[in-house]
């Protein structure tokens, strides 16, 4: 005997309704339903009441018939075939509430449907019921009003967390209000969307009004004259429909987008972190689903791009959060096609030469400017009347060369490798000497360098002589050290005896300065 597998209806409703966490998803579903019902205006009202929150969605569409209303409450019984909601899952989010009231006028009949305590009943393993009352109404009286009372998200719906900004950005990024369909279908109907939040929720304005179209910041192909000339630059890339083949046939991707600097991008609504929302988005029903920035080659920063690639053959997860058919040949070929197209965009001379070059040049100019400022500061700091004092190792070497003019012995720098532990090779009266180089002799000990690794230590001056004396007192690297500043040498006894000469450039220069006096003798 053949048997049908059975479905636990209550559990199914619970599971599907549980998939939806974000109360804003109510708005997404309602807007799509309103558009499909031919609405030109939708009003969304969210009120904070004593018994919880009320979400009311009203549209002027052609309303629901008895069958439509049945689909609205049924599971997996959508009457739609190709738009959002065709799985018949979306409206089940409404079940996470205390009460659903639907008023819809269609073809001269007004249906009033009420479902009480759906969420509570589902959790008590009971299938909630709804009651429909029919009334005659004028044939031209159409539209739908849905009121959801006491909606609860995973952690309880707190309408206070909603602001106009948050709702606006959600609308533009995740719902039909951010649709790019109008770029491809010039007949696409415009629908006004108005959101009215309770004064207690957000009193920054009376209402939010937008449409069902995402538009890009206005084009500006030429740079500005300011310090950041590329920041408002923006170029639109016209809608393109590209057919591509895959194992199951041929599909079309519709792609439209823009390239723009930070200021231009800031004119777009924000969803999540502004800096990560750019790049290339896959979309279905012209509503963005997820990013595929890997279709941009690695040498291009995704942040400059904002492209929406719509493909109706993509399959989405129930809550529309992800693309579900990623293992398919379609997805692979779609990405290949996008990569091909996006390389063209990235190689467009406007992007590479006008925009990026403008940006780069301005950056270099700014850097040069800050260099100039720091050079000016440095020049100001130089006072020829004050004696020269080196501040780094290279300046010590320059000072050494300077000291040769009148010193008894000539010491020249034959080689200098700054990153080596013993960085310099000096020639002292023709003999090569390996040498450490410091501004102060103390640094050698502080840096814990061994004393046997070079013939000499070249320094500007000794530094704190008491510090040196302390090393003498305590010993160094397990041996005795004698720092003989009189004869400018360090004698180190460990297993063997090792002598390191000290060259103090400061003294050589001082000797030179005093020379005219000695010559008077």
């Amino acid at each position, binding site marked *: 005997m053949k048997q049908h597998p059975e479905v636990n209806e209550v559990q199914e409703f619970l599971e599907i309704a549980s998939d939806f966490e974000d109360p804003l998803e109510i708005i997404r579903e309602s807007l799509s339903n309103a558009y499909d019902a031919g609405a030109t205006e939708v009003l969304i009202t969210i009120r904070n009441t004593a018994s919880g929150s009320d979400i009311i969605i009203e549209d002027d569409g052609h309303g629901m018939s008895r069958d439509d209303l049945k689909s609205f409450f049924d599971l997996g019984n959508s009457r739609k075939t190709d738009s959002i909601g065709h799985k018949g899952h979306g409206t089940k989010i409404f079940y996470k509430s205390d009460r659903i009231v639907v008023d819809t006028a269609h073809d001269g009949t007004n249906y009033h449907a009420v479902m009480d305590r759906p969420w509570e009943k589902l959790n008590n393993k009971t299938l909630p019921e709804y009651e429909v009352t029919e009334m005659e109404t004028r044939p031209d009286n159409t539209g739908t009003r849905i009121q959801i009372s006491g909606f609860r998200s995973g952690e309880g719906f707190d309408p206070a967390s909603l602001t106009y900004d948050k709702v606006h950005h959600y609308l533009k990024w995740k719902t039909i209000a951010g649709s790019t369909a109008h770029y491809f279908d010039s007949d696409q109907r415009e629908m006004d969307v108005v959101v009215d939040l309770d004064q207690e929720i957000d009193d920054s304005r009376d209402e939010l009004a937008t449409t069902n179209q995402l538009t890009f910041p206005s084009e500006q192909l030429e740079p500005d004259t300011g310090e950041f000339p590329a920041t408002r630059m923006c170029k639109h890339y016209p809608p393109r429909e590209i057919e591509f083949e895959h194992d199951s046939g041929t599909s079309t991707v519709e792609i439209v987008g823009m390239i723009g600097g930070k200021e231009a991008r800031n004119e777009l609504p924000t969803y999540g972190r502004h800096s990560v929302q750019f790049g290339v988005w896959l979309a279905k029903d012209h509503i963005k689903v997820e990013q595929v920035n890997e279709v941009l080659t690695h040498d291009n920063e995704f942040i400059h791009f904002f492209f929406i690639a719509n493909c109706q053959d993509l399959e989405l997860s129930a809550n529309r959060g992800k693309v579900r058919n990623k293992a398919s040949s379609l997805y692979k070929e779609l990405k290949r096609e996008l990569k091909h197209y996006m*390389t063209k965009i990235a190689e467009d001379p406007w992007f590479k030469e006008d925009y990026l070059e403008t940006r780069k040049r301005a950056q270099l100019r700014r850097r040069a400017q800050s260099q100039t400022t720091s050079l000016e500061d440095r020049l100001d700091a130089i006072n020829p009347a004050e004696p020269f004092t080196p501040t780094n190792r290279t300046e010590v070497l320059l000072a050494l060369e300077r000291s040769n003019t009148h010193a008894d012995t000539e010491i020249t720098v034959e080689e200098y490798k700054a990153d080596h532990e013993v960085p310099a090779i000096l020639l002292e009266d023709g003999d090569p000497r390996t040498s450490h180089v410091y501004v102060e002799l103390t640094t050698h000990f502080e840096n814990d360098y061994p004393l046997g690794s070079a013939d000499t230590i070249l320094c500007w001056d000794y530094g704190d002589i008491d510090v040196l004396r302390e090393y003498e007192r305590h010993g160094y690297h397990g041996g005795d050290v004698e720092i003989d500043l009189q004869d400018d040498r360090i004698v180190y006894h460990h297993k063997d005896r090792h002598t390191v000469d000290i060259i103090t450039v400061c003294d050589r220069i001082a000797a030179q300065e005093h020379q005219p006096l000695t010559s008077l003798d």
Partner: protein
Amino acid sequence: MPQFRQTDQTTFQVAATAGDARAGTLTINGQTLETPTFFPVLSFYGGGTKSSVFGGGVHRTIKEFMIGDDAIGGGTYEEYFRGTMTSVAALTDYGINRERFDDYTAERIKDREPFSEYSGLIFVDSGGYKFLHSDGLDGSDFEIEIDQREAFRIQNQLGGDIVVNLDRPITPNDTFEERQTKAERTAENAVEFARLTQDYPGARYLTVHGYNYSMLNRFFDTVQSQFGNIDISTLFDGIALGSLVPKKDNKEALITAVMDCVEIMEERGLEDLPLHILGIGSSSIPLLVAAGADTFDATTYILNAINEKYSVSLTDHIPLDEVDFSQCDCPVCSTPMLVDRMQGNAEYQKDILGPVAMHNLIIHKQEVQELRQRIKQHGTDPLINYLDETVGRRDPIRKQTHRVVNQSLGGYF
């Protein structure tokens, strides 16, 4: 400075342009070639004798195709050989003795009985690239020192329809001084070449060398300074851009060299001359055609065959043992005997791989013909679409395709 004959037996007429790409006709001594075109490189003499169509392994089979020999079952393949390229240097590739060398150069190629039916244009390269290293032609028991006079003597004896001066190609590692010395030597040769070829009935091309605008511009300056105030555009029938073989796998470098050469030719009033690219073929052709090059030569079609690679387009090939010959309707793959041979049923490699080389050449020629057609259509879109759908689909050269579209064809947006 001697008097130079102005060139008058060669015409190059541009019939259509798409951006910098151009389609035209090159007429030399009454024979006409449509450009862009690809000259297959082949060795007319491969160490053998008349009965073996002068030998040469796969080259021999190619020659059999060229003349419709019974050995390949006859057939007419002339249309793929309306222009061929050979080199003075190739004469001794097979280590022949002096006697045979003298025999090879005793009569013009087209005057020899096996090639008497052949009426295509023969481009005879001077062999500069090879002579740079050896300074001579090395046979099994003789050596000939090659200078401009000797190079031209052999080009003349072979009956080249297009001849070039003996050049000193550069390499990517050359220093500035080395390049300059080579340019001066090439320029000196160019002057002697112009003098020697005063009464030559074929087309005379000037070889130029450089990888970018500055190098090429300096090269042209060096040549021009040797000619004093004589306008070189009146002395040569074409420009042959050389030294690109070491960069054959670097599309960016090839495109830069060609684009810059085209720019300099325009600046110097040489834009009416055809631009030949020495030693570069295959997947580079579409991009270089778009950048403004007119003719090409390469051995790729033979080298690929020797490596058992069967072309399916200019850019793609498949291993010979995986080929389904019924998928191709070229004359080679439509001949059961040749298919049988390509499947390995022949004693000699030349009989197995020769038809593969011929097939590869046909694919090359068909694609170049397609490019020609695209240029002749209205606007740049047909050519852009072709590039986009062929080379533009290949990851390593996608960006270079976009570069050419943007810089030479007006861009996508």
